[in-house]
């Protein structure tokens, strides 16, 4: 799974369904929506899945205050809830990498919401110095995506 960067594995036979899901482990401590790995067997007691999950709101707060430490870092936040994709096609070249110079209006990533691919654009020109999320990770509203060091105005 890891090798192939898979997020989900689903197997179904004779009414038995097994689903594996890789946690989007995230060093910045942003929302971890899924406890992982998780095996879903229909008919099993729901209580058996009651594993603890990261506590989202406080984690999200830390994440949003973290980029603020760097003085003139411009943070691009997710305008919608959805799934973050770094590239236009699975396994394709990422839109941007750390160190890339971007122009205002340039596409930085895609957030998939309700089967729709929404392109997220840079709202400043500058150098991408941080990427806070990983490909395939679920993101909430307002979650920091990119840290951009803006170009100085001439």
């Amino acid at each position, binding site marked *: 799974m890891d090798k192939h960067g898979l997020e989900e594995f689903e197997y179904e036979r004779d009414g038995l369904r097994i689903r594996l899901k890789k946690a989007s482990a995230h060093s910045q401590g942003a*929302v971890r929506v899924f406890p992982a790995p998780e095996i879903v067997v229909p008919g099993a007691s*729901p209580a058996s899945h009651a594993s603890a*999950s990261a506590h989202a*709101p406080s984690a999200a707060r830390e994440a949003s205050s973290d980029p603020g430490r760097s003085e003139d870092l411009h943070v691009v936040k997710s305008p919608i*809830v*959805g799934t973050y994709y770094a590239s236009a096609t699975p396994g394709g070249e990422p839109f941007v990498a750390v160190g890339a110079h971007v122009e205002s209006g340039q596409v930085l990533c895609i957030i998939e*919401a*309700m089967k729709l691919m929404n392109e997220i654009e840079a709202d400043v020109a500058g150098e991408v110095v941080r990427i806070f999320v990983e490909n395939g990770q679920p*993101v909430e509203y307002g979650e920091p995506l990119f840290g951009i060091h803006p170009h100085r105005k001439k």
Partner: protein
Amino acid sequence: MFRKILIANRGEIALRILTACKELGIRTVAVYSEADRNALHVRFADEAICIGPPRSSESYLNIPQVISAAEIANVDAIHPGYGFLSENANFAEVCEASHITFIGPSPESIRLMGEKDKARVEMAAAGVPIIPGSPGVVPDEDAAKKIAEEIGYPLIIKAAEGGGGRGMRVVREKGELIPAFQTARNEAEQAFGSANVYIEKLIERPRHIEFQVLGDKHGSVIHLGERECSIQRRHQKVLEESPSPVLDARTRKRVGDQVVKALAKIGYSSAGTVEFLREESGKLYFIEMNARIQVEHPVTEMVTGVDLVKSQIRVAAGEMLADVVGSVEFRGHAIECRINAEDPETFTPSAGRITAFRVPGGPGIRVDTAAYSDAVIPPYYDSLIAKIIAHGHDRAEAIARMQGALGGFVVEGVKTTIPLHKRILADPDFIAGNFDTHFLDRSPALAAK
């Protein structure tokens, strides 16, 4: 049974649904706006997802955001609570299309009950008495004159898509009819985007009595008795109780049976409330149905022992009503006081930080709240901060317990309607059960001392 449920609401009802899910062993996902980052429903849910800025149109009412959250959290079902998306047929359809169970009635039932004139026709066809009036929308002035002659005066003109008193006109004599008809149409057009109005007999000194119903997905429907909600201020319920002080057992059974028959006919599932106006003669007339769990559901829970929210979840998962509820017995009397963060004199909302919060307890007292000391009441949502429910073996005991609870409820930092409730509970007419829906509006001394 569901594995994981997303709760598309906030405040006390989100906590109420959380509690029900925990009892059933179901994992919970809270959604929240940026204004609710520190809210208790966020803290107590297994997972929480921020879905937008404070304004509810961009968060709690934002269907794509809620559905996206449900998809990334991989839930089986969504409980909409009350308000927000709870009676949005389109939302229920989007849930269906996304293979997520909407915990509530079918989109068709929601749509039917949302169009009040159609709902009336449907209920009348099933034998539920409706207020004498036009069979549907009154298209023009000639039709209005004809209907007025049939039902007599006084009468009332109402917006078909309306609510909250807008697009409403009372007509006491023939000469007022046509100007009032025109004004009501104009108001309806402006407020609701549709000039459709209907006409009905005006019920003077009405009491608001509603029946709690519950249906499953297998065609069974039951009722859980009535609630009296006549203590209102500008069409907003203030205090509710069950049973009604004026409804006798025979009427309860007759109207209850009619309601059950009508809803079984349309295949209604989940919780719902069928609202009636009672005229002084004692006759009940259907006015509308709310296709959701209601704010005042706890009074029914206290007198029946039926957990309505858990029942909603279980029937949504396909369980049979007979297994979920069984036989229902009515025990004692329950009263609910809605405590709003409002100035009790002027009723202007009082948002801000709660500096002290002490909840009453004792025999027969239940408090549903999401407030706490140091919580901030945001200005973006409704002002309900707590519901106190008092249960006693009869109405007098319930009143005494409520008086005690109101006295022991301490809220500092924001203004609340606690003093208003204290005055209502001490009013001789209220204690005697002698009131109608104009009780508060008629007693300015009571409503704003």
